[in-house]
């Protein structure tokens, strides 16, 4: 069975090429994914992300439950609307999913998790909720639109009411606010400024049309992937999965080790991994020669082999970039080799981030 988002008809009206994305019929592009990519880097583009799963966690134990469920510490969240990126691990320390948690109060949080992992995420949360006084409520009655790019905030402002504009005025990165029917957050998956906006299904088509009319370019999953890769953001299922430690996926920064008595799931395993220092790490690779680095290509280093987890042509940089998992001893600036189409090609190791706010950052 194929799911369709509330914006499906709008995509067809804009000439989208639709593909199956883990059971959802989603736009891959509306003609040219490279043009869509550039729209986000230089102006404003929008993505239908209504397939993503919104889950509200509420109740007197909501904070305690989330402090156990995820590797970052929601106790750090004290200002209403503040968001946190983190991971949810299994007992073996593998990443079940990455997610964003919005804080409204210590008894009210909103989680946004991947659609591809929806069922296992919900099952895991349900299982872990035993003994906690909470309710876990999926919110499928909303659409979600990510509007991203240097002009995104200005273009969204043209269709907000005075009340809505006041609510988002000066909002810092990684915050969200509910104003009227809209939940507007300064989050994204592109390395540009912008919003992710949760809108009731009944208003989604109209909102999308107004954004089109304001000159925001519709962008598909193809551009979404090249943009997030340039920004060095992980894609679940490629850059990490249940067999991968967050330490090996550039997610160590999302682990809160303090306080030491917070017993989050996977803590024992991560502590042992950290002490051993033997986990591989996720780095960036840059190849300025012709060709495109691709997922699963072998990386040959003097410290042993690694693997490309995500690779693409970078439309902004006009050459290929990749994320790769390599032995920990490999350093930024090293030259390593990638096995491409039966040949070994030299590439340079960088930090796993290539473009932010339209500019090269390595």
């Amino acid at each position, binding site marked *: 069975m194929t799911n369709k988002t509330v914006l499906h008809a709008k995509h067809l009206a804009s000439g989208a090429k639709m593909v199956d994305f883990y059971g959802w019929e989603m736009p891959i592009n509306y003609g040219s*994914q490279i043009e869509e990519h550039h729209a986000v880097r230089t102006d404003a583009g929008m993505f239908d992300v209504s397939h993503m799963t919104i889950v509200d966690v509420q109740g007197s134990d909501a904070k305690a439950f989330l402090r156990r469920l995820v590797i970052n510490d929601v106790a750090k969240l004290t200002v209403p609307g503040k968001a946190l990126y983190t991971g949810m691990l299994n007992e073996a320390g593998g990443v079940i999913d990455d997610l964003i948690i919005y804080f409204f109060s210590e008894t009210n949080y909103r989680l946004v998790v991947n659609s591809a992992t929806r069922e296992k995420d919900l099952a895991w949360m349900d299982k872990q909720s035993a003994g906690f006084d909470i309710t876990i409520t999926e919110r499928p009655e909303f659409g979600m639109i990510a509007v991203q790019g240097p002009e995104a905030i200005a273009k969204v402002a043209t269709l907000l009411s005075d009340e809505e504009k006041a609510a988002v005025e000066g909002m810092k990165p990684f915050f969200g606010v509910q104003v009227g029917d809209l939940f507007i957050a300064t989050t994204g998956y592109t390395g540009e400024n912008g919003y992710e906006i949760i809108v009731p299904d009944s208003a989604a088509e109209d909102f999308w049309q107004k954004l089109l009319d304001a000159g925001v370019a519709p962008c598909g999953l193809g551009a979404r992937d090249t943009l997030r890769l340039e920004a060095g953001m992980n894609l679940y299922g490629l850059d990490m999965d249940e067999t991968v430690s967050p330490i090996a996926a550039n997610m160590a920064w999302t682990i809160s080790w303090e306080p030491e008595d917070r017993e989050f799931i996977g803590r024992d395993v991560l502590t042992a991994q950290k002490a051993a220092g033997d986990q591989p790490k996720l780095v960036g690779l840059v190849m300025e020669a012709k*060709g495109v680095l691709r997922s699963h290509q072998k990386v040959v280093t003097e410290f042993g082999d690694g693997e490309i987890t995500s690779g693409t042509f970078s439309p902004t940089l006009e050459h290929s970039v990749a994320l790769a998992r390599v032995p920990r001893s490999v350093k930024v600036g090293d030259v390593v080799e990638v096995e491409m189409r039966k040949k070994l090609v030299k590439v340079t190791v960088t930090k796993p981030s290539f473009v932010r706010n339209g500019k090269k950052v390595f």
Partner: protein
Amino acid sequence: MSNIPSELKYATSHEWVRNEGDGTVTVGITEHAQGLLGDMVFVELPDVDDEISTGDDVAVAESVKAASDIYAPISGTVVEINEDLEDSPELVNSDAFGDGWLFKVKVDDAGELENLLDAEGYANSIDED
């Protein structure tokens, strides 16, 4: 349904062949194929004077999505390559049957053209994909 010009011949592996009537043919990939591949970022072509045989992988079309081999639809000698693709690989997307041509071949045996599909045969072959 994508455009399939009736004056061309086709291989099931999505190359098109135009008989230039002077012992040479022009080769490209079809509108349907470029649509499957998406935005082209590099096209690796054979060298002029390369001897190629039907079915050889002689070129690579690399799009944002994937690298795809291009096979010789006919045997012969490469006499010209489309050098515009070096700087403008997107011509393959924008004009697959025209400015996005890949290379020209002086054919060994013009009779080989008869082994290729006509437009209707190609249309049927992609319906089965």
